[in-house]
């Protein structure tokens, strides 16, 4: 059993979950994920790590409430116990001294990009972090991210905070400032990852995105997480989940993401990204 230390709503529809999972955090690296399962009758949900504390043995996750299973997670209270937090799964994201790295986070990705930002900074990169959201009230962890960033750019679609626009605005700003990134990393919903791959491709550097495919086992056994990267079939849970977004077949990915939408009576959510 894994004990819940904290669970709170941080912005509309997004929750922070802190769970005691010492074995998982012992070896976890940025870009890896866990699968959470709330017991018989629930789904197995893959969620990327947003932070951890090895000494305390705790793992933090930011998740979006989208369906019945994440709805269950959103009701957890400190002291509750859940039967399954398994991981760390997936291949860690590549952390090297690249030079200038632009990290883009939106939605739950503002959480999951944090370990990446921290690790990149600690490796000596110049880190430019972009926070993306529909509106000011959907941005969070600005302070936490700023601590490990050389520059922070806020982007809101309604212009209520920082610059007005989506991730494309960020790439225009970089150009105006004369900054040429050596690598771009984007975390968030499929729409954000897709847009980043498209709008930052002209920099001609890898645009690493974390794919949020449907998963079941997370160990390469079922194949539901398959996607096409560079014309080849990849299993996101064991080959990824991070890939160069420029090589991903986005149309297929988006269609596969929606497989169970009519089945699962998806709750409409309001973070405005399209919800998948």
């Amino acid at each position, binding site marked *: 059993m894994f004990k819940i230390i904290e669970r709170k709503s941080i912005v509309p529809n997004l929750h922070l979950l802190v769970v005691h999972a010492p074995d998982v955090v012992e070896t976890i690296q940025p870009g890896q994920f866990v699968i959470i399962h709330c017991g018989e*009758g629930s789904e197995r949900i893959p969620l990327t790590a947003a932070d951890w504390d090895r000494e305390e043995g705790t793992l933090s996750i930011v998740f979006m409430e989208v369906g019945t299973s994440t709805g269950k997670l959103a009701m957890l209270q400190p002291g509750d116990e859940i039967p399954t937090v*398994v991981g*760390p799964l997936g291949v860690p994201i590549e952390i090297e001294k690249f030079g200038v790295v632009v990290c883009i986070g939106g939605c739950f990705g503002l959480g999951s990009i944090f370990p990446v930002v921290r690790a990149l900074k600690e490796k000596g990169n110049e880190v430019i972090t972009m926070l993306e959201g529909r509106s000011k009230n959907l941005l969070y962890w600005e302070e936490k991210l700023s601590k490990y960033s050389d520059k922070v750019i806020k982007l809101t679609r309604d212009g209520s905070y920082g610059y007005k626009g989506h991730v494309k605005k960020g790439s225009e700003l970089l150009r105006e400032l004369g900054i040429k990134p050596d690598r771009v990393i984007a975390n968030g919903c499929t729409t954000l990852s897709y847009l980043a791959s498209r709008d930052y491709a002209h920099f001609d550097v890898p645009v690493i995105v974390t794919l949020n495919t449907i998963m079941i086992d*997370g160990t390469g056994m079922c194949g539901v997480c*398959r996607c096409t990267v560079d014309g080849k079939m990849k299993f996101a849970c064991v080959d990824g989940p991070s890939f160069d977004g420029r090589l991903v077949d986005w149309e297929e990915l988006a269609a596969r993401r929606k497989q*169970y939408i009519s*089945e699962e009576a998806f709750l409409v959510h309001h973070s405005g990204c399209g919800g998948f």
Partner: protein
Amino acid sequence: MPKQADFIRKRNFKEVALGYSAEDAIEEAGRCLDCKKPFCVDGCPVEIDIPGFIRAIAEEDFALAIKILKEKNCLPAVCGRVCPQEEQCEIKCILEKKGAPIAIGRLERFAAEWESQQDSIEMPVIDDKTGKKVAVIGSGPAGITVAGDLILQGHDVTMYEALHEPGGVLTYGIPEFRLPASVVTREIEYLQKLGVKLICNFVVGKTRSLKKILDEYDAVFVGTGAGLPWFMNIPGENLNGVYSANEYLTRVNLMRGFQYPKTYTPVVRHKKVAVVGGGNVAMDCARTALRLGAEEAVIVYRRSETELPAREEEYENADEEGVKFSFLTLPEKLYGDKNGWLKEIECSKMELGEPDASGRRRPIRIDGSEFRMKMDACIVAIGNSPNPIIPQTTPELAVSKWGTIEVDEESFKTTIDRVWAGGDIVSGAATVILAMGAGRKAARSMHEYLSSLT
């Protein structure tokens, strides 16, 4: 053996075979000739004393029957149901020549069921504690066998499982109507009663490296089974409605999708389902699809009926339930609608040519024979590669070009000191009993090694 009637069972997930009554079992056992040289035993990969347990049933000493079975086989309730007896023990039975071999599997199943209905089961004697610690990775039949054997020999056994439930393929793959989950649960609980520690939700190689596990234990057994399902490499395979057999069965079995919407793991209720492949796994998928309400489930197999690798019994069951068969058919392209859902499968007809390396006649595509089937689901059941996680995260471990772990044929030792491996991870997809046979041999070698330590 009595079965649920086909028109009833094809709509429910309850076990198809109803099992022998005591009278049936005694009568069937009474037919056994108790041969001096029992060929049946030669056919059994774990060398059960077959005439011995059958004699006990004939003499109505069911407790003795189960005791004899358990001397060689720690999972009789499972093997009695899913072993291919018709190509192992029963085919060797002297009465086979007369066309009616003893129903060894059914008798095995009977004895195991009898035991499960007793108020208390007899616990075996456990040898004195040796103080030696063993880690078993994977809780499928191979791992279960190793754990069962070594705990009885007094070693301390911890079994690690990646999923949230133990049992391997027995739990996530083989459907409820062939092997009820309760049977597997019972066997696992028995192991736990013997003292085996079970840790689920733990992926060795990820949560902790094999190397680190090796620091904590005296010996390690790797029985991580199958992984990475194969696809056909044809256009359209990533359309929605196209599944690997593992995904389809896992949704239904492990995640209890058959109870949806009572459970939350969705299973789409498809109307017309094609299943590609011809093994037990393909039969399981087609029969599951019918039970989920499909109007039509068709097995698409590129060779002919004669080459069908599935067990005869399962083929028969599938046929009775209304599964259709399209033999000598090769899918070549999948077409979808504008939302990315499968709509049609284009296939070619095949003919059989000369025998290939496996001795089976090679299917050859007939040019110009293309035709299309309207289908809203396609389940690909053509096999899988071994589970990649331990090899991927343990570079020192020697693996073959197919990704199976290399071991010494007799001892099942790997190239890493103090690490043994067996089951599908070594042999590639095989059977429950072969995985158990491998586990048995590995356990023997592990015990030898552990006993040599002071």
